[in-house]
């Protein structure tokens, strides 16, 4: 009975994190972007610096009518947001937050193959955007969908390779194991892997500057063109959840997770802090860099990231064997 309760509690906790963390990231994006662009951003909703802006947005989305275009492939169209969202929820299950006041590791489910699990879940998640592009019955969406597919195929490889490098160094695929095995000098040894992983993750999430598939100026949001209301909100949520998952993975794999002072008790806080920092980097990248052209996207993947990742794997191999 205690076990079942434990599992239920963990699930609830993950669900709570899933519902709150992306909102926090979204709010941070609003405010950070605004200040970077010398404006104040949302101020009205909720009073203090517009803290309830995203809640208000959510209420607005819920109120909106969900429209399905006539030309759309109805089932695919309607299923796409869920396919985009759910895998990140599942992925979050396996991402550890670290020791919680000496009460053991705060994690949904510790898996022997945690890294694989998360990567697999993320790779399923991108299918959602693809389905949106295919099912909308809109040529902008179609082109956007094709760009998504090309981008996913290109960036999956360097991302997995970079993750594999860390797994090799740690000698395990368990995320907790990797974070435990982390040592500070990995920051230097795994730096190329860190960069590759982060950049490839950005591309997988189609975050700027890799948002050529969405490209609101030319493709009118690409696969998301026809979506409105709650379904669009789910896509948005999936995007921010994706940022959280990416930031969490980056933290656990490359930044030592809960490594820090008093980590036995405050490990979870360290992890959250690092996740916030990485998320801020993601937002910063959006503001700082212009959108890459489609050919630049693929060139970056195949000509820079893949060789870099392979070099990282080689280096790690040498280090591990030595």
């Amino acid at each position, binding site marked *: 009975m205690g076990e079942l309760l434990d599992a239920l509690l963990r699930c609830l906790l993950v669900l709570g994190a899933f519902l709150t963390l992306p909102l926090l990231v979204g709010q941070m994006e609003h405010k950070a972007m605004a200040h970077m662009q010398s404006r104040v951003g949302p101020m009205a909703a909720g009073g203090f610096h517009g803290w309830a802006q995203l809640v208000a947005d959510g209420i607005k989305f819920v109120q909106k009518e969900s429209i399905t275009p006539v030309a759309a*492939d109805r*089932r*695919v169209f309607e299923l796409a947001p869920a396919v985009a969202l759910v895998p990140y929820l599942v992925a979050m299950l396996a991402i550890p937050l670290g020791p919680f006041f000496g009460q053991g590791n705060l994690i949904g489910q510790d898996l*022997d*193959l945690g890294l*694989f*699990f998360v*990567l*697999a*879940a993320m*790779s*399923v998640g*991108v*299918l959602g955007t*693809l*389905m949106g592009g*295919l*099912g909308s019955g809109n040529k902008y969406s*179609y082109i956007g*969908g*094709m760009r998504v*597919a*090309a981008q*996913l*195929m290109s960036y*999956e490889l360097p991302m*997995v390779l970079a993750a594999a490098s860390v797994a090799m160094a740690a000698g*395990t*695929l368990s995320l907790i194991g990797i974070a435990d095995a982390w040592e500070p000098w990995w920051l230097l040894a795994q730096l190329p892997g860190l960069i590759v992983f982060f950049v490839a993750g950005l591309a997988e999430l189609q975050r700027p500057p890799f948002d050529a598939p969405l490209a609101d100026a030319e493709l009118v949001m690409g696969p998301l063109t026809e979506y409105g209301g709650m379904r669009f909100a789910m896509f948005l949520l999936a995007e921010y959840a994706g940022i959280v998952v990416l930031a969490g993975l980056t933290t656990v794999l490359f930044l030592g997770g809960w490594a820090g002072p008093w980590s036995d008790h405050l490990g979870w806080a360290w992890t959250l802090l690092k996740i916030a920092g990485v998320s801020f980097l993601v937002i910063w990248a959006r503001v700082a860099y212009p959108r890459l052209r489609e050919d630049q996207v693929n060139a970056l993947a195949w000509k820079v990231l893949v060789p870099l990742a392979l070099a990282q794997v080689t280096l790690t191999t040498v280090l591990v064997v030595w």
Partner: protein
Amino acid sequence: MSLTELVFLVLAVVAAGSALLSMTSGQLVHSALWLVVTLGAVAGCFVLMTAEFVAWVQVLVYVGSVVVLVIFALMLTRQTSATTAEVTGNRWIAAALGVVAAIGLGATMVAGFRGEDIEGRRIGTAGSIGQALFTDWVLPFEILSGVLLAALIGAIVISRSGSDR
């Protein structure tokens, strides 16, 4: 009937049904998406059969790469005139052959392995699989890398020769 068996049967029905839908669906994209369901269900079966590592590899490679690749190919080769049927004229022969093959194989299996049970004594973890892979199976592994390289070069050559024209 244990919980594992029940889940397995459900997954099996899902896998077979979605496979059938995938192969008979009139819309190409639906076929690919039904295939995703089939592959996912098969991955679930793998998990139930103590092959966790294989399961996640299946999801990662098939769902993450192969299906995306297939969908990409489908999008690239979308035909403007959809006048032709999606199945050929010999569909009934094909169906008969498929049924015969399935029944024949099934009958063979039933004849040969009735009453056997999977006990799940050895879990296929990353460690055990890796141990096997890089000790006893290292030579096939290396050969496979050669095969993959050949396939990679072949795919590049075929694509290039097409685009040069």
